[in-house]
């Protein structure tokens, strides 16, 4: 396969990162391994002592693990919908960020189901999900759906990377015998032969087309686990689309954050530009409005009817001693702040600096400030959406329809123990570690796709010049 100068330039840029590991990278990886190790210790501790070491009890049988599960699966579904849509619509500026989206999709859906396993009291009965699963149960649908989605994500990412494996194989610029051997195996003899090119594009289009409805369906199925249960705050007809938009909202925010991190770390100004942030920022703004609309619908209807059990839940959510602050953060700050920051140009472009006198001065500045504002909004969104998932699961379980039999405080009110904190932190740590390791194996910017994108732009420019002439 021909590796032209542009591709060589890109490979050269990533070669050091792929081949070697700097001191900081080693420290970062070690830090993540320590966090994950602590999580594994917490898991073993739980297996030895039982779930009594968590905050879960008779009523709150699903704790923060399920909130984490929904959070990670949401990120994965959103990534898949984004990647599929960008590809099918042949969005020209997509190539620089496609790898980030595809990778975050796969890693999220690999981590999410682990939290379900942590919730299972008897792991030895895990196989019962398959041997005794009932088709009528949304849990069974979810098990089938998650397995299908993981398979789809693996295939989609692999198809997208095959051509880059071939480029890396033929470039001879990446050292390491074993690494080149793996590139050779994974590139499946790809040589850019027209039939191969056609096949791989067709396969990618099929996967892109199929992964969008799968993601929407799976996100909806996930919502049905709650929506089809007669519990306050869960039994809702809009939970399906609500979950889809919540997933998209948090997933888009995550992509923005990862783009920013790699832009700064790898100095990818040539590939990831302000344009990318502005476009994804606009998408985030639209999703914030849609998600806010669903949120208002959801709470307004139950507040207006004020049915007995719903009212109990609402009272908990609006109680300053219980969930008020989390509720405000998840449903007001997490929606309104991004809308204001991204939607109002003055807020988006402003920059706050501290003068030597200690007085805060606001200057108007474009460029980096816009990117920073959008990334700040994205961080708020990701945090708010995690809190939102917590608020979906816990307060409802603390509001059972039958009287609570055991009146001990820990049975009435759920609170996370160190075990749950350790395993909750281990999830994002695992995400970061897998992302770091993946980008040490292939470039974070798709070489072939970016090259094609550049060529298309050049052709368009040439045609425009010819027309003008």
């Amino acid at each position, binding site marked *: 396969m021909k590796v032209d100068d542009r591709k060589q330039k890109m490979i050269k840029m990533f070669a050091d990162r792929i081949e070697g590991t700097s001191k900081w990278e080693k420290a970062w990886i070690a830090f993540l391994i320590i966090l994950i190790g602590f999580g594994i210790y917490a898991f073993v501790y739980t297996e030895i002592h039982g779930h009594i070491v968590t905050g879960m009890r008779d009523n709150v049988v699903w704790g923060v693990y399920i909130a984490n599960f929904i959070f990670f699966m949401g990120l994965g579904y959103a990534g898949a919908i984004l990647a599929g849509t960008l590809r099918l619509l042949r969005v020209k500026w997509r190539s620089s960020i496609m790898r980030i989206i595809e990778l975050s999709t796969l890693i999220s859906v690999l981590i999410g189901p682990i939290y379900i396993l942590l919730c299972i009291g008897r792991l030895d009965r895990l196989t019962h999900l398959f041997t005794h699963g009932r*088709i*009528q149960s949304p849990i069974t*649908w979810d098990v089938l759906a998650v397995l*299908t989605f993981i398979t789809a994500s693996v295939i989609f990412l692999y*198809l997208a990377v095959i051509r880059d494996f071939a480029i890396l194989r033929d470039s001879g610029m990446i050292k390491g015998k074993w690494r080149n051997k793996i590139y050779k195996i994974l590139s499946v*003899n790809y040589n850019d*032969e027209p039939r191969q090119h056609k096949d*791989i594009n067709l396969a990618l289009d*099929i996967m892109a087309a199929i992964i969008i409805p799968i993601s929407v*369906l799976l996100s909806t199925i996930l919502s049905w686990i709650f929506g089809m249960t007669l519990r306050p705050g869960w039994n809702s007809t809009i939970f399906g689309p609500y979950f889809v938009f919540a997933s998209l909202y948090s997933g888009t925010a995550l992509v923005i954050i990862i783009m920013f991190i790699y832009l700064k770390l790898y100095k990818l100004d040539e590939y990831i530009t302000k344009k990318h942030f502005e476009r994804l920022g606009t998408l985030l703004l639209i999703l914030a409005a849609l998600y806010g609309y669903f949120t208002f619908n959801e709470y307004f209807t139950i507040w207006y009817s004020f049915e007995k059990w719903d009212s109990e839940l609402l009272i908990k959510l609006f109680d300053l001693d219980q969930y008020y602050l989390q509720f405000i953060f998840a449903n007001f700050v997490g929606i309104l702040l991004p809308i204001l920051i991204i939607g109002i140009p003055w807020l988006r472009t402003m920059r706050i600096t501290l003068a030597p006198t200690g007085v805060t001065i606001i200057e108007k500045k474009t460029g980096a400030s816009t990117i920073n504002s959008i990334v700040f909004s994205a961080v708020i969104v990701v945090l708010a959406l995690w809190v939102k998932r917590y608020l979906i699961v816990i307060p409802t379980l603390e509001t059972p329809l039958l009287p609570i039999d055991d009146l001990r405080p820990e049975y009435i009110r759920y609170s996370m123990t160190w075990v749950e904190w350790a395993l909750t932190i281990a999830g994002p740590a695992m995400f970061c570690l897998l992302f770091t390791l993946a980008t040490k194996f292939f470039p974070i910017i798709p070489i072939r796709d970016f090259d094609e994108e550049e060529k298309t732009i050049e052709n368009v420019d040439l045609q425009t010049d010819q027309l003008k002439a």
Partner: protein
Amino acid sequence: MHINQNKMEINIKSLMLTNFRLAFLSFIILAFGINLKAQEELSRTYLKLSYTNNMDGTKSLSASLSYKEDKKFVQVQNQSLSFYSGVDLDELIQTVEVNAKGEATVVIPEGHEADTAGIYFYAAKFKGTDTLKRASKDISVKDATIELVFNQKSDGKTISVKAFEVDEEGEEVPLNEEVVNISVPTLFGDMLINKAPLEEGVCEIQFPSNLPGDSLGDLQIIAKIKDSEIYGNVVKIEKIPWGKPKLPQHLESTNAKGKLWTHNAPFWMVVTLVILMTGVWSHFGYVIYKIFRIKKIGAEQMK
């Protein structure tokens, strides 16, 4: 001058003494006052004690501890309660900790004898805490016996109840003015079916025919004399096939196939799932086939 000086000294001494007495008195009053206040802070503890004769050979004592806070009863938790028996209430049965609902139950071991009149004496004692006053409650009970006869006639089902105590000569003495409750156990407590007063130790109670039983149609019937001043709680439980047999036979019946709650899923659900899964996985298969084709084309080109 000298006399005046002496007088002054005496006055000063007298004043000092008076002041000292006043100070001492103030101290005593203050200390007593604090003590009174401390005593006032102790809440009254409410102790309830009940006796249950289960008629299966087991007898038990149940007690509950509570106190009042803002005119509401609050259960006492994590405190020890001692149960005693004997005429002088000095034979310790057991000391147990009350549960989260402020309740404790002990099974009375054999060997605790009644007095010559056949009366048993029991007590529960709570030592008190820094904030709760100590409390004790004693009861005296006699043993009674309940016998049930189940009658099934064409016009319905009835339960004949016979209740009596045995006197010192071993003669049966019928119970009077006690009420017998007939109930069946449910998931969240016993469901009262009917009740009737005893007359000369007997009563007859109607029983419905439409109650669901277990898979064999068996029902547990609970006959109970509740909170009697003389006999405490007397409970007799018997099993009889007077209920309607329920699942799984019902589930497997021809009327219930393909429902959400049956083993077999609704047909449309199975079809939808099969179509969805086949559709998706066949696309995966096709894409994987394409990957192998790419590999094959590449291999051919290399040759």
